[in-house]
């Protein structure tokens, strides 16, 4: 077993230890695991099914039904482009296109270097600040294509700085 797998196993066990094995705990369990691991690996879902004494397909159906859960590892930085009504009329789809163009990935994908993952979100409720992108949990107000370039540039500078320091 690789260290990564062992770590996943350990973290899953820690999450399951704290909760009861009732079916209604399924979604909170998956939420906690995703918070820890960033995604839901297949073998973890199998373990959750065993823990709750339900079939694997029941866990899978919940994991794939809800938009919050992802089945592939996320990138180092997460980008969520808001697709709410207010963002849409102020150019949210143009912002999304800008992210896609720069990162060369589509929503739901992670960049090959694992630096960024891109996704859309239905609405983060910051309609007064439209168009909005959520970058690493921080809500970026008025994120137009120029701002997209600015955000990416700041990450690039940060990365170069880290390299120099090492």
């Amino acid at each position, binding site marked *: 077993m690789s260290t990564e797998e062992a770590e996943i196993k350990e973290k899953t066990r820690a999450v399951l230890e704290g909760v009861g094995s009732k079916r209604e705990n399924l979604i*909170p369990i998956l939420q906690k695991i995703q918070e820890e691991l960033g995604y839901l690996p297949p073998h973890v879902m199998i373990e959750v099914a065993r823990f709750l004494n339900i079939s694997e397909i029941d866990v899978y159906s919940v994991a794939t039904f809800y938009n919050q859960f992802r089945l592939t590892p996320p990138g180092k930085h997460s980008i969520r482009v808001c697709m709410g009504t207010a963002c849409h009329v102020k150019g949210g789809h143009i912002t999304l296109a800008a992210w896609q163009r720069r990162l060369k990935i589509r929503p739901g994908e992670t960049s090959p270097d694992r630096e960024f993952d891109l996704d859309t979100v239905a609405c983060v*409720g910051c309609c007064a600040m439209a168009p909005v992108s959520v970058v690493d949990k921080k809500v970026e107000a008025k994120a137009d294509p120029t701002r997209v370039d600015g955000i990416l540039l700041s990450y690039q500078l940060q990365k170069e700085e880290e390299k120099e320091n090492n």
Partner: protein
Amino acid sequence: MKFEEIKRQAQSRWQAIWNDQTPVILVGTATCGRAAGALEVLQAIKATAQKQNLNCLIYEVGCMGHCYAEPLVTLRKPGFPSICYGHVSPVLAENLLTNLILNDDPSLEFVLGALEENDLIPSFSDFPRSKYEKRILLRNCGRINPEEIEHYVANGGYESLSKALQMKPVEIVSEVKRSKLRGLGGAGFPAGEKWEVCRRSEEEPKYLICNGDEGDPGAFMDRAILESDPHSVIEGMVIAGYAIGARHGYIYVRAEYPLAVQRVQNALIQAEKFKFLGENILGSDFSFDIKLFQGSGAFVCGEATALIASIEGKPGMARHRPPRVAVQGLFGKPTVLNNVKTLAYVPHIIKNGADWFLQTGTERSKGTAVFALAGKVVNTGLVEVPMGTTLRQLIFQVGGGVIKGKRFKAVQIGGPSGGCLPQSALNLPIDFDSLQESGAMMGSGGMVVLDEDDCMVEVARYFLDFTQKESCGKCTLCRLGTKQMLDILEDITKGRGKMEDLETLEELAEDIKQGSLCGLGRTAPNPVLTTLRYFREEYEAHIKEGRCPALMCQTLIAYYILPDKCARGCDACVGTCTVEAISTDKKRRIKVIDQEKCVKCNTCLVACPPQYDAVIRLSPSNKVPKAG
């Protein structure tokens, strides 16, 4: 501890904050404030206070509703009114603070308004919009620290709970029934009736659920209330639980609202500590607990039966009704499910009585409604107005009209379940029934203003795209019918539509409405039907001429630089173009867009200085002159 004692203590602490000689600083740190940089401002204020050795109290508060002016900071120095400043940056915050506290200078040029009436500065109540507003649910928002239960108690909080516990449950149900309070989640079902059915059921245990799964894109009222005044919702829940005879409650909040989740969690812990929640509430026989459940990002879970399925750990799929949720809900037991705002209204009704509530609103819709104003409106933010206020008053008097002096085109109400209403509907009073008649619906209260630059076909396509993706897939017509409608709309926005498509759309819309179990499917066609009803000529322009009148549909437009307006020496568009599609035509010394490379991102149009105004959009896209 007796309630009276808790209240006295809270009040004396609250008064000490405001009557003392120490200056008080309030920073609005709800999500919209944070998006505008409120946390950086808060940090700057703390640093300044420390650096200058200022003795002052700094509190985080929720959302005041003036989202257009975020971040908001309120300063109060004894001898001055409480002054609210808008668009505050960290540097400005430092200056405001030192100016007022050290030099007695209120920096009038940055003032938004004062919280209370005074002789020095115009107060919020002097704003023209305050004539139309009536803040009941939003009363505490932005004025108290949502993480301090004592702030809530000092302002009359939990008094209604204390009063309710002296009443018989049946008296509370009949009072709520008499008030004609209707579900503020959008459908407008009388709350008291739900309560009564559940109360009468002999099945045990009973459950109470607060629906905070505010999934409508363009709506953020529930988020703001949960973030700014969470105790008002908790108090309403405990009273409702007592009235219907429930022992357990759930509060269902979207995971996309992390701050709301955190503040509700904190509020639950505090409420339990003060005995407003848990075993033997305020020394009575009544016990009630509340669990926080985080929604996982499925729009359909706003629907009662889907939400219940989700709490039970299943995919959020709606089921057939009857049996009604009040008879057979969570875990098959009688359940009352109310929206955040409906429950937040309960303490007010118990405190002031049903007659007080009946004074506001229209014949069949009582009380106030909270709206989230967004889109192309000047004063974006939260507003609370009495039911029956007209759309015109709300958008133009309260909202300040359309931005950049553009022409009003439509207002989208009720999100994906609602519709787009045109200019001619502006005199419509806002209440459950009038909106339904017009083809829209109250929905949860999202209101997005659209101007001349918004294409109605594209807006209809946008909403259908949303509902199509969010359809849970159980009902065939909702799952496949919306897909068909979406394909047709996509064709139209790309200039491939046919005239007979419009009839097919209307036919499909009726079928989907008829053939869907839950509100998602039954209302999904509304945005298409209302735009077809009020803006048919736009559909026809797309189909017959391949032209998008609002110049929004990307396939049908092209960007073009007018040679005689282009300032030649100016390089603004070249520098900002994100794909290097603009270059200088050396011979004619003007800027030219390479149509092959252009991604139509609108950046050059924004960048072109207003005195030249040379970048324009043309539709159909083949209108671009060949030479340029």
